[in-house]
């Protein structure tokens, strides 16, 4: 993990140094004076050789300092800290949503193979991975915000909430904070703001989970131990929901980490559409404004999140599957 992160910082740093446009010029703005450029260059440390700058950057990063954003001129660390909970909340919610919806559908279609719902589910899961999520988000906006006007268009919470029902920031996750403090009006507002982005974001992994759950359940049903259980005359429902499901869900759990990282990538698209004040939108704004320190900061935070998520997913696998725990391999 440390190696991966080191390589990643080196790569992103290297890219930002050989970028075609000059950060100092971007900092100063259009029509810079030479003295100004010189001063900014010195301030940003651009006059020093590349390895010195890299070491400097890494040293600051370890201390939790990503430098200043070219776009907003604010310390990146602070901005990221502010945006971080929003993204985690959105992605986690989307993940939970796709599990709650995806697993039952997958299990049901596996138990009712070749039925009408199985075919519908198959078409749904094929199209789910094919639909561009940025387009899907915009179609949802058209449908639910413009055509029916039942859900808010964008943002994380209604702006007047800050005055009528201010949220005490404990964890930074609006849903959790409002639920703890019993602020149900703000909770409702946060929840309906969350719905569209989360559903959009979860769509692809939902389809993937349906498919995976279905195929692994089918595989498990045909195993010998299920046949043995049937031969012993154990009830069909008991077999299905007690014995088959336990083993059938293992592959779904193993891909949790993968889906989570996938959704983090998707958050860049979804947050930019729904104007969700999170890391993904920050990334998008940094990209279109050539804000290299910003891009690097978000990239590293994303990378750390992904590494941690993969680690947790691996531990989870070991927890649910004794085979992994005992042999150390799948």
């Amino acid at each position, binding site marked *: 993990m440390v*190696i*991966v992160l080191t*390589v990643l910082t080196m790569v*992103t740093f290297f*890219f*930002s140094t050989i*970028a*075609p*446009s000059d950060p100092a010029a971007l900092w100063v703005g259009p029509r810079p004076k030479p003295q100004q450029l010189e001063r900014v260059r010195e301030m940003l440390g651009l006059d020093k050789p590349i390895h010195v700058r890299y070491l400097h950057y890494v040293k600051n990063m370890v201390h939790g300092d990503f430098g200043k954003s070219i776009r907003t001129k604010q310390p990146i660390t602070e901005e990221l800290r502010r945006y971080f909970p929003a993204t985690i909340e959105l992605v986690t919610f989307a993940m939970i949503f796709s599990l709650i919806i995806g697993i039952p559908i997958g299990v049901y279609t596996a138990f009712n193979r070749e039925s009408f719902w199985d075919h519908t589910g198959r078409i749904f899961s*094929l*199209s789910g*991975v*094919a*639909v*561009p*999520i*940025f*387009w*899907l988000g*915009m*179609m949802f*906006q*058209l449908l639910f*915000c*413009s055509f029916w006007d039942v859900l808010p*268009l964008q943002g994380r919470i209604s702006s007047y909430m800050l005055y009528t029902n201010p949220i005490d920031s404990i964890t930074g996750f609006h849903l959790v904070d409002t639920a703890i403090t019993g602020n149900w009006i703000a909770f409702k507002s946060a929840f309906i703001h969350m719905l569209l982005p989360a559903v959009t974001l979860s769509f692809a992994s939902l389809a993937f989970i349906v498919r995976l759950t279905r195929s692994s359940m089918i595989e498990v049903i045909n195993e010998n131990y299920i046949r043995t259980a049937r031969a012993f005359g154990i009830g069909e429902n008991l077999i299905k929901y007690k014995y088959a499901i336990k083993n059938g869900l293992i592959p779904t759990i193993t891909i949790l*980490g*993968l889906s989570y*990282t*996938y959704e*983090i*990538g*998707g958050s*860049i*698209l979804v947050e*930019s*559409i729904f104007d969700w004040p999170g890391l993904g939108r920050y*990334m*998008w704004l*940094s*990209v*279109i404004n*050539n804000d*290299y320190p910003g*891009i*690097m900061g978000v*990239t590293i935070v*994303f*990378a750390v999140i*992904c*590494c941690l998520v*993969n680690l947790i997913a691996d531990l989870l696998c070991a927890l649910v599957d004794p085979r992994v725990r005992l042999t150390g391999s799948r």
Partner: protein
Amino acid sequence: MDNVTSEVSQTGRFERVYYYLYLMRKNRLLMLGLCIGMILFLTALFAPWIATHPEDAYGSLNMKEKLRPPGADHFMGTDNYGRDIFSRVVIGTRKSLSIGIGIVLIALIIGLPLGLIAGYYGGKIDELLMRTCDGFLSFPQLLLPIVIGGVFGSSMKINMISLAIVWWPWYARLVRSQVLLVREQLYVMAAKSIGVKDRIIIVRHILANSISPVLVQVSLDLGYAILASASLSFIGIGAKPPAAEWGLMISEARPFFLNFWWTTTFPGLAIFVSVFAFNMLGDGLKEVLDPKVR
């Protein structure tokens, strides 16, 4: 004697081909995917003749016809510059298909040989390569291309290369896992024991017997590559205006699409249909080629 055996194997091969063709014809999913795929390729090929207003795809403006809803003259309406969306979608097929094919080809050229080598020789090369792949695969696929695009500025070429860079590990891993299975087969050991060169074993026995999942993956990935490059264009890295590119068209329509639904709906549908087609194609191929699923 020699002649007879070769003839037998020849007919066997033909019969197998016919058998596969029969299976393919029987597979509705595959046929549908194949049909849409063919239509897409033909559209891309004859795009300037199919498009009703081909000049609109190359930056001609027509402010008088601004934001017209779909109608007889403009099948999919017009955008904020009065450009015919149907023509732009049709001509955009070229860009999307070519970039999709480009990404998959580059990824295949890098990933296939590396996977073969890693799987066949094993040892330290294998270890190093797989760790590299794990590193790539543990991040969101769009992350690195976004960083590269954000730093180097937007261009379709950079887009294609950076997507290929994050794509090849999938192939390397897939090929390696196949090779590990094939390597232990009797015919490979037989070839080895009579002193056939490694290079020939790899190409004639191992590659030939591990290619079918790769084919499936290629057809699936054609769709995903189109999707990924459209996403990048949507974010603002990739195609530049006034290019007719599906992702870019959606992104350009963002400020006003809530009042003019056709501006985003049709380019998005184009992306969806093409990715869906390649998905069906891949899924169908899997059923035909993989006896287990069949």
